[in-house]
C-alpha cells in the first residue's frame, strides 16, 4: 500500500525540555522519522572554565533541575577522583540514600504524571484528580516522601545544598532517619504494592512493539548499580569508566542541538529498562516479584516497558533505603566535616546511574584546584539515536492506523524514554585553552 504521511509535533508535551517529532512518508517510503531537539543550548563550558572545585557540582547541578541530584553526585565523584579526596562510609551511605530518594521521585513523577495520562486517554494528570482521586493522592504521597528524603538529607530536593566534595555540610539527625524508615515501611510500602496493582491494570494499554538493541548501564557486582560501578554493555560486556569515550562516541547531527551517541551498533539504549536488562540479578527479591507481577522479564526489548521498569525500580529503592537506614542507625551518625584537602590535582572520571540512564562527568583540575577541562555525557543524549531508530521501525508497522493514532503512539514512545532535553543540550565537552 502506498501512502503519504506527514507528522509534525511541535514542542512535545509532558517531557522535560523542548523537542519536536517529525515524520515524513511519501508513497509508502519513509523519508524521515526523528526527534528534533530544539532546546536552547546553554554553553556550560563558559560557566565551568576556571571554576574552583568547590563550585563544580553547584554549577553542573544546574544543567537540569529534574536530574540535579544525579549531576551533583557524579560531579562530586569526579572531583574527588581528580583531587584524591577519600569519603567515609557514612558519606557513601547517605549519598546512596539520596540517590534512592531521587530515583523514587523521578520514576513516580514519570509513571503517574507524564506517562499514565496516555493510558487513560487524558491530556494531563489534572483530570485524574476528579476520576481517580485515590491514585493521584497516592502518587503525591510517594513523591512527597521521596522529596522529603532529599530535603532531610540534602537540605533541598532540587539543587541540594549539603552534598559537597568530601562529604556533607550537615548531617541529618538520627530521629529524622528513624521517622524516614517508619514512613518508608508504613506508608510507602503499601503504596508500592498498590502502584504495582494500578500499573498492572494499565499494562494492557502498553503498545506491543519490539526492537532489540544494545543496552548500556552501570553494573556493580555488589548491588543493583546506581551510585557506582563499571560500564556494562549487553553487546560487549564490562568496560572501566575510563573507557567511556570509546563507548559513547558523541557526534553532532543537524536535527538536534544535543549530540547523538553510538557504540557497537547505530544506537543504544540507557535508562531503567537497560539497567533492568543488565542487572536484573541484583534487584531486591521483592522488586523481582513486582517485575514478575508486571510481566517484565529480562531481556525485554519493548521500549514502552521503560515505564514498567521504573516502577520495579521504585520497589527496589524503597526496600534498599530501609536497609541503608538500618546500617546508618546501627553504626550511629557522626558529625563529620567534609574532607576537602586535595592530595593531588589531575583528571577524574565518574559514572552514576541517574533516573534516565548512565551519566558521565570528567574533569581535569590545575594545581590551583580550578577546572581546565570538563566533559559531561548525558543519558538523554545517548538515547536520541535509539529513539530515531525505534521510530523508523515503528512507523511502517503501524502505518495502517489513523494519523492521530500514529502521532499518539510516537508521542508515547518518546515519553516512555522519559527524555530530559535540558540535560541533553548542556553542551559541555571542550578543551579550554588557557
Amino acid at each position, binding site marked *: 500500500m502506498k501512502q503519504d504521511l506527514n507528522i509534525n509535533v511541535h514542542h512535545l*508535551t509532558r517531557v522535560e525540555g523542548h523537542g519536536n517529532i517529525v515524520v515524513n512518508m511519501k508513497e509508502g517510503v519513509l523519508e524521515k522519522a526523528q526527534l528534533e531537539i*530544539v532546546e*536552547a543550548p546553554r554553553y556550560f563550558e563558559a560557566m565551568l572554565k576556571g571554576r574552583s572545585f568547590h563550585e563544580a557540582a553547584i554549577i553542573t547541578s544546574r544543567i537540569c533541575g*529534574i536530574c*540535579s541530584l544525579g549531576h551533583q553526585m557524579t560531579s562530586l565523584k569526579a572531583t574527588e577522583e581528580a583531587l584524591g579526596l577519600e569519603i567515609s562510609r557514612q558519606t557513601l551511605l547517605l549519598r546512596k540514600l539520596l540517590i534512592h530518594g531521587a530515583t523514587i521521585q523521578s520514576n513516580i513523577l514519570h509513571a503517574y504524571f507524564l506517562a499514565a495520562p496516555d493510558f487513560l486517554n487524558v491530556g*494531563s494528570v489534572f483530570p485524574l484528580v476528579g476520576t481517580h482521586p485515590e491514585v493521584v493522592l497516592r502518587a503525591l504521597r510517594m513523591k512527597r516522601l521521596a522529596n522529603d528524603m532529599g530535603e532531610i538529607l540534602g537540605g533541598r530536593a532540587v539543587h541540594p545544598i549539603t552534598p559537597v566534595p568530601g562529604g556533607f555540610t*550537615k548531617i541529618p539527625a538520627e530521629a529524622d532517619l528513624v521517622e524516614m524508615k517508619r514512613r518508608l515501611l508504613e506508608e510507602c510500602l503499601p503504596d508500592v504494592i498498590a502502584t504495582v496493582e494500578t500499573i498492572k491494570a494499565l499494562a494492557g494499554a502498553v503498545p506491543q512493539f519490539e526492537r532489540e538493541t544494545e543496552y548500556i548501564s552501570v553494573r556493580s557486582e555488589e548491588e543493583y548499580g546506581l551510585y557506582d560501578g563499571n560500564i556494562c554493555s549487553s553487546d560487549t560486556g564490562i568496560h572501566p569508566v575510563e573507557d567511556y569515550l570509546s563507548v559513547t562516541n558523541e557526534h553532532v547531527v543537524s536535527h538536534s542541538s544535543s549530540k547523538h551517541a553510538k557504540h557497537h551498533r547505530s544506537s543504544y539504549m540507557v535508562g531503567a529498562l537497560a539497567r533492568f536488562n543488565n542487572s536484573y540479578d541484583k534487584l531486591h527479591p521483592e522488586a523481582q516479584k513486582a517485575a514478575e507481577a508486571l510481566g517484565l522479564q529480562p531481556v525485554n526489548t519493548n521500549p514502552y516497558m521503560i515505564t514498567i521498569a521504573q516502577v520495579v525500580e521504585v520497589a527496589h529503592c524503597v526496600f534498599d533505603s530501609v536497609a541503608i537506614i538500618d546500617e546508618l542507625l546501627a553504626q550511629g551518625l557522626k558529625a563529620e566535616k567534609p574532607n576537602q584537602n586535595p592530595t593531588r590535582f589531575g583528571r577524574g572520571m565518574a559514572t552514576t546511574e541517574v533516573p534516565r540512564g548512565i551519566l558521565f562527568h570528567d574533569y581535569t583540575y590545575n594545581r590551583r584546584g580550578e577546572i581546565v577541562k570538563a566533559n559531561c555525557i548525558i543519558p538523554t543524549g545517548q538515547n536520541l539515536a535509539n529513539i530515531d531508530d525505534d521510530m523508523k521501525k515503528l512507523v511502517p508497522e503501524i502505518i495502517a492506523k489513523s494519523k492521530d493514532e500514529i502521532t499518539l503512539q510516537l508521542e508515547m514512545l518518546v515519553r516512555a524514554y522519559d527524555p530530559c532535553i535540558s540535560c541533553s543540550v548542556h553542551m559541555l565537552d571542550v578543551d579550554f585553552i588557557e
Partner: protein
Amino acid sequence: MSAKPTVGIFDFTGCEGCELNHLNFENELLALIGHIDFVEWREAMDDKAEHYTIAIVEGSISTPDCVQRIHDIRNRCDILIAVGACAVNGGMNAMKNQYPLEVVREEVYGEGKDLFATIPASPVSTYVRVDYEVRSCPMDQGEFLRLLTALLSGKQPQVCDNPVCVECKLNENECVYGKGMICMGPITRGGCNAMCPTHGQYCIGCRGLVSKPNMKGMVEILTNSGLSLEEAQKRINLFNTAERERILL
C-alpha cells in the same frame, strides 16, 4: 481578582527545576487547583490556551525564538511572574555572555556552529514588563506560595531587599567567614531565610543582588579572605553576570 484565574506555566532557557518545584507542591497541589485553573503547562499537560490571568515564566531569553515567544505570552496575559534566577536576573546562563558568541558556538559545535541560533542570555525583563518575581535557584517554594496567596486575595506582596546576612543572624548561625569559607551573603538579596548557611554551606548568591549592593566592600572581604581579584569577580558573577551589567555599567 475574580474567582478561578487561569494560569499558564512557560519554560525558556534553563534547567526546568523551577517548574519541577511546581510539581513538587505535593501537599498544596490539590488546594491550588481549587483556586486556580492551570490552562497551559507543557511539561505536565497537553492543553493550550489563548489567554492567561497569570503567566508564570521560567528560564532566560537566549534565542531569537525565545524573544518572539515571550512577547507573545506577554500580549496574552494580565500578570506576568518571573520565577527563578534564570528568568529574574539571567542566572548562571548569563555567564556565557562574557565570551564572544561566535567563540562560544564554535567551541561547542565546531563546524556545525551555524546550525543553532543563540543570543546573549538575558532576564525576561530585558524584553517585556515583569509584574512580580520569585527569586532563588531553584525558585523558593514558600515565596511562590506567598506571592500567589497575596495576588489571589488582592494584597500587594512584600518584596525583600535585605541581604542574606540579616536572616543568617536571625537564625543565630556562626558567620560563614568565621568558619574559613567565603560567602555571598553580604550583597545577596534575602528572602530565603539564609537557607544555605543554615545548612552549613556558604551563600552562593542565587537570589541576585540587593538593590544597592556594596560591591567594593564585597570584593574587599573576598580578597582579604585569600581570593585574587579575578577569583573574587568570578565568585560574584556566578549568578550575577547580567545584573552586574545593568547595575555597574
